[in-house]
């Protein structure tokens, strides 16, 4: 076992005597990073998120000279809702964890949000996709960082239609998440003047998409929308390449694709793919500097959008804890919404009343192998979606916290 994931007491680095005025429960701010450490999402979240959280604590304490004692623990929920809720309950009930970060896999994110609200703790989610976390399942103890399905659908859908991709064919994974992605993206496509010429439901999970890709090819739609995730997405992209679909003039739109996915596919197969993310390591000097430090601590692997989300959210969390002088979940959540955010990865942003963190989103196209200068140099920026347009507007939100 290469790395020990149990409590990293960063307190050792800042062993200041007593933290005086703050009402921190048992004197320590304990953050639990709960995600998938061994399965489908381990590259996108996993170990890297713990590294990101650690870096966030170090950077924050160094920059603000805060006297907080912070501890980080990690655990693997194995993509199983019962394991995830079990760990969360145990963390909150017996191990004095104050905040749970990350949590990919929407079903688990939703469960943790509920448990955190029930126990008055805090959940800052960077890993789940479901927009319901700031929508109908929102609560005062949950904040949704990094990305969500609305942003993905809107970013990818709208931007692509506007740039000429106006006929769509959907390959949809036949389960709730796939349906939601398809539904949201279809709505955006139609609203922006595009047409959906066909869709096919692929059983979930599937290894072989050849038959569905053939149908997509026959439809002659300009854009083939992949309303799926994880292995399904990488398999459909790989096989689309094999069948010469992109060479035939059609473009693939990945509705949920992360940098590590592109890395495992190789540029040869993924070139031309369009996708939306809210973070890319090569955006500016600051993201590059962060990436260099992160990769050194993460076995050479570059950060994903989720890793960046964990980093950014932990920094803002600690800022709010210091400002609110407590680690009580509900109070800190309110403080996080009160304070504007500013960090090296996402720039300036805010956390809204519904718990949704706002920052700009970017539409990328995957480079051709000839255009790339090295590993992880995969994206070219097509357009930037400003923060106030990137996420679902408050007026359309069905979160009960939002006063209409």
């Amino acid at each position: 076992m290469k790395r020990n994931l149990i409590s990293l007491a960063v307190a050792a680095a800042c062993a200041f005597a007593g933290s005086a005025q703050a009402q921190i429960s048992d004197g320590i701010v304990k953050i639990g990073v709960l995600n998938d450490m061994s399965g489908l999402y381990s590259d996108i979240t996993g170990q890297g998120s713990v590294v990101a959280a650690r870096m966030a604590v170090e950077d924050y304490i160094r920059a603000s000279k805060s006297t907080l004692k912070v501890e980080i623990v990690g655990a693997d929920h194995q993509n199983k809702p019962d394991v995830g809720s079990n760990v969360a309950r145990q963390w909150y009930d017996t191990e004095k964890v104050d905040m749970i970060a990350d949590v990919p896999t929407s079903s688990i994110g939703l469960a943790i949000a509920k448990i955190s609200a029930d126990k008055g703790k805090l959940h800052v989610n960077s890993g789940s996709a479901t927009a319901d976390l700031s929508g109908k399942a929102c609560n005062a103890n949950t904040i949704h960082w990094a990305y969500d399905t609305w942003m993905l659908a809107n970013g990818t859908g709208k931007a692509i239609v506007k740039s000429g991709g106006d006929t769509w064919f959907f390959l949809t994974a036949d389960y709730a998440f796939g349906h939601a992605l398809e539904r949201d993206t279809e709505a955006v496509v139609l609203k922006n003047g595009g047409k959906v010429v066909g869709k096919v439901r692929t059983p979930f999970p599937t290894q072989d998409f050849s038959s569905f890709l053939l149908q997509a090819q026959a439809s002659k739609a300009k854009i083939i929308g992949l309303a799926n995730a994880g292995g399904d997405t990488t398999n459909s992209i790989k096989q689309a390449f094999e069948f010469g679909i992109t060479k035939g003039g059609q473009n693939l739109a990945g509705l949920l694709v992360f940098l590590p996915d592109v890395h495992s596919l190789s540029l040869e197969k993924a070139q031309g793919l369009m996708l939306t993310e809210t973070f890319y390591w090569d955006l500016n000097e600051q993201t590059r500097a962060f990436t260099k430090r992160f990769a050194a601590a993460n076995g050479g692997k570059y950060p994903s959008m989720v890793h960046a989300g964990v980093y950014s959210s932990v920094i803002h969390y600690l800022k709010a804890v210091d400002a609110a002088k407590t680690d009580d979940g509900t109070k800190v959540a309110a403080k996080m919404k009160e304070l504007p955010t500013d960090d090296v990865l996402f720039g300036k942003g805010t956390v809204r009343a519904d718990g949704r963190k706002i920052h700009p989103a970017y539409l990328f196209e995957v480079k051709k192998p000839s255009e790339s200068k090295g590993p992880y140099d995969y994206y070219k920026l097509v357009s930037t979606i400003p923060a106030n347009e990137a996420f679902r507007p408050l007026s359309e939100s069905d979160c009960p916290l939002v006063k209409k």
Partner: protein
Amino acid sequence: MEIFGIPSQALFGQLLIGLINGSFYALLSLGLAVIFGLLNIINFSHGAQYMLGAFVAYLSLNKLGINYWVSLLLTPLLVGATGVLIEKTMLKRLYKLDHLYGLLLTFGLALIIQGVFRHEFGSSGMPYPSPEVFQGVFNLGFMFLPKYRAWVIVVSLVVCLSTWFVIERTKLGAYLRAATENPSLVQAFGINVPRMVTLTYGFGVALAAFAGVMAAPIYQVSPMMGADIIIVVFAVVVVGGMGSIMGAILTGFGLGLVEGLTKVFYPEASNTVIFVIMTIVLLLKPAGLFGTQK
């Protein structure tokens, strides 16, 4: 021309694709049927050994520069050798017990193999390039068929039919089949039955690994690639008739075709169609389509 509302060209395209999937089902169920026929053991680690084949090919390419063609021969031998080791050290001792223990042992082995690879490689899946000569597509008019997939169909047919021929039509095959029925009598004739059993298991495992190498360029090489396909393969073998070699081959290709059709007309059901067929077959002919009541 349209058949059931689908243009015939599209239909043939889908059937051809179904045949490709069927090739994998056939190769895998062939290995299982061979092992079950002789050893009376359900090799639950078949899926893991399929995955091993793909990974050994991937690793030998990336660490040792061994190309696809050499891998196609070398990998099954290597993985088959591990199969021989497993049989000699563990399976052999279980023959005098209830056959279900063999199932449990191989299940445990599958967990270990998959766990180790998941630990080392995560779950994402590694890319494996198809060999140069097969890159590109054949333009068949009604669809573009990637050359590599055509190769898959050809090779599986050849391998399946040769195996069937050896078992059903040669002397060696006759010894094998006799040993299944009455091992002590065959032993009395001077045939080294235990060695034959060991090698048969090794051969079955090698077949799985061979399928893995064939699969590497098409599907992502990932530690869990064998886990779900193995259950489908079990269903194929149950439908085909557990001891029947030809039954396994025909059902494998047949299932590929049926799945292909389902994907056109009712794609949501394509995951479950095999199990539905299995249920129907069990109700009507419990021994399987080509099997004999044991």
